[in-house]
């Protein structure tokens, strides 16, 4: 910088005549230097926000984090960070983080300070006491060995190693109500993709989108919710790909697409079903792919009746229990799975006609192992047999015409045809189309079937397992994939092994008999489970005690997070751990979440700041309305501040199964600790307090393998040791290199079989960081993806049946005859030496039963499932049903809604009249919800950051100019949105981004609203979930929050007791009773 003091003089006399560089720089600016320059080291890390998994460089000076920037070496993010990732310096070093333990004594009116050691002792005491009081050895005469007195929620923002310790400890203590955000975000993804392909994770990876010729983004605002991942969509566009965005709301994703298709929220199955019908009726399917790689040719039992035959119902529905018996959906010649095959009178009585098994989340267990089908089935290779899957599919979707799509979805026929032409023109041997979706698809009462519909379409088009193809499940938390894989979920053990059911899984043998397939890799489930039991109970797990299988507590139905709330209200659940999750804002029907917590004996909240789930007793909405009084609330509350991602080592699993390690950069301050530290030390305290106990109930926790090495002044358990336990070892203590080496005799140990080999060769594979410029697209030298570092799943399907690439343009993995193995641009997702012409013997079992032409190696028949003969509880084919609350009748069938959806009747959870029901006009508008770039889920990691709140300071709702006129709403003024559950106020944003649609001959208005706000933090507002109801998908218990009905009116909502009266008035006007919306089969 020149010494001249005045910028104008520098401009005139120096080289920078236009004052674009040095001439414009002030003296203060010139004296500044980047924080990065002053750092003395850089620590490799991963962004803790969404599931893209952007790599970060954490700059440290004198043991303080001074800057966080994007890591240019990452093949996923290439150095970029979105506003949230860029604000992570403020997240980790900002003043909003609590430093100390806080304690609210029962009936107390304010927080008190408590030292950390005392708090840990008190929490252990509370847990032990509640566990003793609520211990249950049996239920209905069957062993359960559990407590329903304690529950846990949280894990998607935590590391895999933390989730692992939490699940291990809680399971050993008999706690089964263990849940995390994965339940409420993407559980339906696991069921939908898992039953279709054999694994519940995204079939492709973000970078692979650049090779797409067409990308359909639906149920997602990709550009704003996953901004850095969206660069790969733009790469594809630059290479000539067509980009289509289908969504109720125009967003920045729409702005960058070639075509925006607005549709009515909650109707995507009709839309996708229309595309399936187009593909079938116009014969646009990829014939060879469909014939060889899907179950199109398989014959279905003659007992099967379709929704076309039964006006919206499938065969097998028991109206009394409200459960489908899937026997009539089977392949002809396939034996029913043991679980239902063993059914007798006692089983039916104990399980209420099978409903407790249906509710136990079995569909969730197909995350890495398809549904169990056994026997010998018949195929018709001509695809003409009327009972073959292909013909059933054609009949099922024949009425999903463009005209019907227009009637249901509000999408004009010409727009439908444009999309149909683009996706079919861009599919086939030479071209591929990808689908990308997020929670716009998952959070419905038919969420699992949404994902199934896309899976069917992509299989018909031959787009699974191929470069630029696939289905990209966009996940919204740093490790929400990981917290499903290594689950803090009630229905799963690590690696998608189902939690045993009391009435179904009495012994290890019965468990394997009921749930393991006899063909494909899922046939080895016994080895996976025994190795897990060895990881948990080590030398105590022996053949003579069934490897401690009895130590696993049993489930007896639905113990999901929404059932937990009910249990809290009923008084059976008395203690609650919240770790990095904020249900008082983020879960459906936020009022019921808070009322549930108000009925607890004790509550432990671990988070960065005082989120609403920690303070509801003091300043929650019910305090304002007078429904609760602080001095009357007996819940004892412990708040423990959490460590940030920069203050602990561990791994996140991103949206495409990529496990990425982040290193500890600095130690946490004051009482801040990692959840790994909390779980480990709490476990130690409990074990110390129980030492010497002769109570059989305590044996599992006392014999638990809990001897991790610790590091640092805080005695942090060494995360890499936990990762090594997850990855597995043999009897020599050598890390395993493949799950094929796992044994069922106790000679191997492995905490999560799908993560086996993550520590192969004694190397933390998840920490490898070969810079992306040195790698191909798959970038297999960057971190590690499950399974076995494979990036594109089912990639055997990228070659034709003979093993040759379908085309040169789309070559990816192929058979190398000279080498006698599969090779290519990725790790082959297929047995390396299995020849394409290998055909199994008729009696072959396990992986030997998978032919050289079967790409879906986790499926019992090796095929992609167009039709799901097992695995889902609400039908073998996706069918359009209206949402729980809808302004319309079902234009396809008499049956309105999913007949086996799960409802939770409660006076605070009333449902709306729908369709032509009297009173439905009181809630005439459709509300859909979404995420903003600058905020994060329930706000716990964004509403306390000044950077982010300056960018998005207030709750708002988006309405069309037409709706604004109809309801007298003015831009930037207030509006109140109302349902039978609650009312919220928001600023009005009048915008053409919301398009009124013509549906069934009338106009329907839709309203968009983000869901991040709550009463605490720097920017405050009402929580959208005051409006939502608990209405759930029956497969996985995910809530419907993407398609609600509401009323909207100008002005602010009432305050205090007047708010309660206001809601009651609405209920009365609409004639709402306890029976409203409760009918399962439409009369």
């Amino acid at each position, binding site marked *: 910088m020149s010494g001249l003091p005045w910028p104008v003089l520098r401009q005139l006399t120096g080289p920078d005549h236009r004052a674009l560089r040095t001439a414009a720089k002030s003296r203060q600016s010139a004296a500044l230097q980047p924080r990065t320059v002053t750092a003395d080291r*850089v620590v490799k890390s991963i962004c803790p926000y969404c599931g893209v998994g952007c790599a970060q460089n954490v700059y440290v000076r004198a043991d303080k984090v001074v800057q966080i920037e994007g890591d240019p070496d990452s093949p996923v993010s290439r150095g970029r960070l979105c506003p949230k990732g860029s604000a992570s310096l403020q997240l980790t070093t900002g003043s909003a983080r609590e430093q100390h333990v806080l304690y609210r004594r029962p009936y107390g009116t304010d927080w008190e300070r408590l030292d950390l050691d005392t708090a840990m002792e008190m929490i252990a005491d509370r847990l032990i006491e509640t566990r003793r009081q609520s211990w249950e050895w049996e239920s209905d005469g069957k062993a359960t060995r559990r407590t329903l007195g304690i529950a846990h929620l949280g894990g998607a923002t935590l590391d895999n190693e933390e989730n692992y310790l939490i699940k291990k400890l809680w399971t050993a203590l008999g706690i089964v109500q263990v849940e995390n955000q994965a339940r409420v975000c993407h559980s339906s993804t696991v069921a939908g993709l898992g039953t279709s392909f054999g694994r519940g994770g995204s079939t492709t990876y973000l970078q692979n989108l650049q090779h797409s010729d067409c990308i359909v983004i639906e149920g997602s605002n990709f550009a704003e919710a996953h901004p850095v991942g969206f660069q790969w969509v733009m790469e594809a566009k630059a290479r000539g790909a067509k980009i289509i965005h289908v969504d109720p709301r125009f967003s920045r994703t729409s702005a960058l697409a070639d075509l925006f298709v607005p549709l009515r929220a909650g109707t995507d199955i009709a839309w996708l079903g229309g595309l399936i019908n187009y593909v079938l009726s116009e014969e646009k399917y990829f014939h060879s792919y469909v014939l060889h790689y899907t179950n199109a040719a398989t014959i279905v039992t003659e007992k099967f009746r379709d929704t076309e035959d039964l006006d919206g119902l499938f065969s097998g529905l028991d109206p009394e229990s409200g459960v489908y018996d899937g026997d009539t959906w089977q392949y002809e010649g396939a034996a029913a799975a043991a679980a239902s095959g063993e059914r007798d009178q006692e089983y039916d009585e104990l399980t209420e006609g099978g409903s407790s098994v249906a509710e136990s989340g079995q569909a969730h267990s197909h995350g890495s192992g398809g549904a169990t089908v056994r026997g010998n089935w018949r195929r018709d290779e001509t695809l003409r047999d009327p009972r073959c899957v292909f013909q059933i599919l054609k009949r099922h979707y024949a009425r999903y015409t463009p005209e019907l799509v227009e009637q249901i979805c509000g999408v004009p026929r010409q727009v439908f045809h444009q999309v149909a032409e683009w996706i079919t023109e861009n599919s086939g041997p030479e071209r591929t189309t990808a689908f990308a979706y997020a929670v716009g698809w998952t959070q419905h009462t038919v969420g699992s079937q949404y994902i199934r519909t896309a899976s069917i379409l992509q299989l018909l088009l031959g787009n699974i397992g191929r470069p630029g193809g696939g289905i990209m499940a966009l996940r919204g938390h740093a490790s929400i994939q990981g917290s499903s894989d290594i689950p803090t979920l009630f229905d799963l053990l690590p690696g998608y092994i189902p939690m045993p059911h009391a009435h179904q899984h009495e012994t290890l043998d019965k468990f394997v008999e009921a749930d393991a397939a006899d063909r494909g890799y899922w046939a080895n489930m016994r080895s996976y489970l025994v190795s897990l039991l060895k990881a948990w109970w080590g030398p105590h797990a022996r053949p003579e005690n069934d490897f401690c299988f009895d130590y696993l507590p049993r489930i007896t139905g639905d113990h999901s997070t929404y059932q937990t709330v009910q249990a809290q209200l009923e008084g059976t659940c008395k203690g609650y751990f919240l770790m990095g999750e904020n249900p008082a804002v983020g879960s459906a029907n936020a009022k019921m979440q808070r009322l549930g917590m108000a009925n607890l004996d004790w509550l432990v909240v671990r988070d960065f700041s005082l989120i609403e789930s920690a303070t509801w007793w003091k300043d929650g909405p019910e305090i304002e309305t007078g429904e609760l009084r602080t001095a009357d609330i007996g819940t004892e509350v412990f708040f423990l501040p959490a460590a940030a991602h920069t203050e602990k080592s561990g791994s996140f699993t991103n949206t495409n199964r990529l496990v990425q390690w982040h*290193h500890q950069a600095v130690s946490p301050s004051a009482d801040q600790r990692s959840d790994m530290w909390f779980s480990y030390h709490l476990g130690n305290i409990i074990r110390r307090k129980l030492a010497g106990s002769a109570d059989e109930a305590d044996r599992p926790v006392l014999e638990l393998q809990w001897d991790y090495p610790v590091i640092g002044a805080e005695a942090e358990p060494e995360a890499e040791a936990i990762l090594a*336990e997850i990855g597995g070892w043999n009897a020599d*203590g050598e890390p395993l290199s493949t799950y094929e080496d796992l044994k069922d*005799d106790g000679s191997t140990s492995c905490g999560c079989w799908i993560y086996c080999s993550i520590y192969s060769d004694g190397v933390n594979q998840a920490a490898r960081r070969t810079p992306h410029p040195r790698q191909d697209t798959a970038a297999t030298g960057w971190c590690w993806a499950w399974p076995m570092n494979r990036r594109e799943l089912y990639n055997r399907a990228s070659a034709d049946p003979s093993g040759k690439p379908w085309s040169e343009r789309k070559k990816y993995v192929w058979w190398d005859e000279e080498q006698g193995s599969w090779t290519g641009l990725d790790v082959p997702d297929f047995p390396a030496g299995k020849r394409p012409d290998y055909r199994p013997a008729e009696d072959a079992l396990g992986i030997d039963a998978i032919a050289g032409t079967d790409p879906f190696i986790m499926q019992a028949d090796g095929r992609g499932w167009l039709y799901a003969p097992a695995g889902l509880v609400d039908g073998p084919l996706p069918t359009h049903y209206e949402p729980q609350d809808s302004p319309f009748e079902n234009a396809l069938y008499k049956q309105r809604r999913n007949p086996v959806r799960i409802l939770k009747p409660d006076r605070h959870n009333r449902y709306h009249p729908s369709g032509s029901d009297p009173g439905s006009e009181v809630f005439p508008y459709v509300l859909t919800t979404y995420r903003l770039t600058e905020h994060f889920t329930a706000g716990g990691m964004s509403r306390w950051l000044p950077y982010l709140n300056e960018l998005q300071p207030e709750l708002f709702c988006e309405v069309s100019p037409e709706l604004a006129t109809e309801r007298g709403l003015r831009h930037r003024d207030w509006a109140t949105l109302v349902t039978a559950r609650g009312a919220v106020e928001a600023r009005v944003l009048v915008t053409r981004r919301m398009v009124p649609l013509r549906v069934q001959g009338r106009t329907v208005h839709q309203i968009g609203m983000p869901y991040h706000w709550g009463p605490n933090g720097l920017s405050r507002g009402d929580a959208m979930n005051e409006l939502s109801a608990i209405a759930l998908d029956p497969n996985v218990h995910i809530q419907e929050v993407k398609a609600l009905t509401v009323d909207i009116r100008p002005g602010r909502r009432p305050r205090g007791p007047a708010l309660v009266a206001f809601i009651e008035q609405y209920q009365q006007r609409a004639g709402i009773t306890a029976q409203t919306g409760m009918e399962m089969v439409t009369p």
Partner: protein
Amino acid sequence: MSHSEDLPAGLRYLIEHGHAADGSHSDNTESTQGLVNPPHHNPTASDSVHRWMKQRAAADHQMQAAARARA
């Protein structure tokens, strides 16, 4: 290769050439971070973890017996 006209020229250049037009990634085969960053910290193995694994396995007599039986 066709390109959409509405993409920024810089992005188009990056896609076509594999490096940025401003020369900031002049050596495209190596990480560029060494030019601007202090040394980074990315250990991928731990001796203490290796020792701990062996201890855990050795202490499990059933595991040892099962492995011997298999051999």
